[in-house]
């Protein structure tokens, strides 16, 4: 499936899938939608990316973060140092004066962390009601009403947790299956 048409199309479609999945997540309280289906739609983007580029590429592009830094030299101004760090991290352009000057921090988001964080969010959204002296999962809504998305409240937190949980589950399955 590694054709140029497919991979280009996926590049354009990925943000669309993700945006739409978040929209589905937000409207889920009073309309069809919600965390589960939102998570599934969101994971489509990554499934296609895995099909087009392979699991390792997906993990590298979306689920890892490399932060470059180097100690500031004595003669360099603060602004210049800042610009160089910005260049290195945002545009990937690293001008090295010496070869081994750039250090990096590598952060990797495993699917299991997404699952755990989703569960944590969902469980804690219910605990808020408990801490307020109400039954577990008693709903609290804010008075804000957003134009497209709807209201904000603890059930939305629960749905967001489910969204992350489903997303993490699908990713875990896709990554494991594409290895075999």
């Amino acid at each position, binding site marked *: 499936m590694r054709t140029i048409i497919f991979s280009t199309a996926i590049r354009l479609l990925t943000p669309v899938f993700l945006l739409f999945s978040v929209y589905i997540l937000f409207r889920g309280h009073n309309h069809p939608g919600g965390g589960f289906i939102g998570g599934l739609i969101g994971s489509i983007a990554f499934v296609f990316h895995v099909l087009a580029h392979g699991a390792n590429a997906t993990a590298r592009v979306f689920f890892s973060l490399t932060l470059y830094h180097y100690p500031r030299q004595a003669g360099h101004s603060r602004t210049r140092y800042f610009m160089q760090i910005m260049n290195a991290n945002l545009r990937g352009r690293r001008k090295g004066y010496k070869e081994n000057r750039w250090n990096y921090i590598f952060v990797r988001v*495993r699917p*299991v*962390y997404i*699952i*755990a*964080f989703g*569960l*944590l969010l969902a*469980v*804690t959204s*219910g*605990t808020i*009601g*408990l*801490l307020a*002296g*109400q*039954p*577990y*999962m*008693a*709903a609290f809504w804010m008075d804000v009403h957003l134009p497209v998305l709807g209201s904000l409240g603890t059930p939305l937190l629960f749905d967001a947790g489910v969204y992350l949980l489903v997303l993490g589950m699908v990713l875990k399955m896709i990554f494991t299956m594409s290895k075999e």
Partner: protein
Amino acid sequence: MLSESLILATATDQPRMNPSLLLLLPLLLPLYGAVFCLLFWQRVRAQVFIAATAQLGWFVSAGLLLYEVSQTGFLTTQIGRWPAPFGITLVADLFSALILASASIVGIAVFLFSLQGLDSMRKKYGYFPLLLFLQLGVSGVCLTGDIFNLYVWFEVLLICCFALLALGGTRAQLEGTLKYVTINFFASGILLTGVGVVYSLYGSLNMAELAQVVRQPDHPNLPLLTLCSVFFLTGFGIKSAIFPLFFWLPASYHTPPIAISAFIAGLISKIGIYSLIRLFTLIFIPDAAFMQPLLLVLSALTMVIGVIGAAAQKDFRKILSFHIISQIGYMLMGLAIFTPLALAGSIYFIIHNILVKTNLFLVSGVVAQQHHTFSLKKLGGLYLKQPFLALLFFLSALALAGIPPLSGFWGKFMLAMGGFEAGNYGIVAVSLCVSLVTLFSMTKIWNEVFWKAKPPKSSKPAVAKAVSIRHPMLLYAPLVLLLVFILLISLYAQPVIALAQRAANQLLYTNSYIEAVLKK
């Protein structure tokens, strides 16, 4: 960890504890523990710390729940503030609190055993989160007040069992797990069908409301109640290994390492019996024409077949697995006789069996740690080498067989008394004979493993893999802990029996349950 400590702080500060908090703690603590274990994936030390906290919390919260329920009778909460027949109800009575408390004791013991007795690969690949999720499922089954949620919690529990049984992926384990998964999915299908049928006939899933509906004498669908109950009898019958459908249990329970099989064997089939007793006292009251004789026959056959199967085995763990089946028969016997005394006997017997069976499995684990086999033929001479271990086994085995004054005796005594009072002499005779054969099996293990001289080493490779143990004495800690609790409920049986009798009365006089849930 922050939210956990917050919850605990509020729990101890308030003079009168919030019932919803008390009911939620046994669910939330294992769940938070599992989530944090997942966040520390593959970091065993952190997971051990988190799991220890969660286990202790689970134990304390179950104890608090038991205390509060013994004071007030019932605790209920409505999840999300939706009132009772529509929302999800959590309810605790004495029966569920007692089972939960004994489950949490076993949880601590198995956790302690796993620290030394489980290989590091299994710990690294998710033993602790799976164990905690399993405990979450156990809490859920015990506390739910809704028939569909009962099914869902059972699924939570079973999926964790599947994963735990297969964890490590050796050939024997996968074979055992496959049998377990196949038959249990079948049982879940039957259960779900039953839930659907009940909903279509009586229009509710809330157990309290169902109990109210089936007690209306003029309900048009009332003659079909027995039909519904057969779905649940079959479904939970498979899950708790009652007579015709027990064969999966001895085929799968002996395959995983002891730290896994002790918890599953000690607890999970009893959770099936718990659900059966809960449903058949609350909703499907056994009628004297059909259901009660059926239950009596099933319980007698379960006892007999289990104990005969055990007598034929030559493997430590397989003998114990077959004995699970025979003791499930005793628990069913109380339900079949259906008097307060017999039900109290069943409840006491479940508590006793959870503790004793786990302890015996752990003893077999300690033996296998040192001799790398479970086969009775190859073992021997342990009485000379480890007299303390022999003592631990001796007391637990006598408790299992029901020698006075140990705990099995009190359970069987109450069951036999209940049987005599109700005039079911046949089942009492069967149970007493089975008890004798149980003693024979335990004597067989004692003779072969502890008493006879150690046979010369054969060239065959060891079955059980050796795990490097840093502190061998720590292996004994869970055994001693469980034995202390066994002796506690044997020698100070009166308070436990009184609690069991109150629990049985709560089960039989359902009006208070219905009132507590529906607040009428």
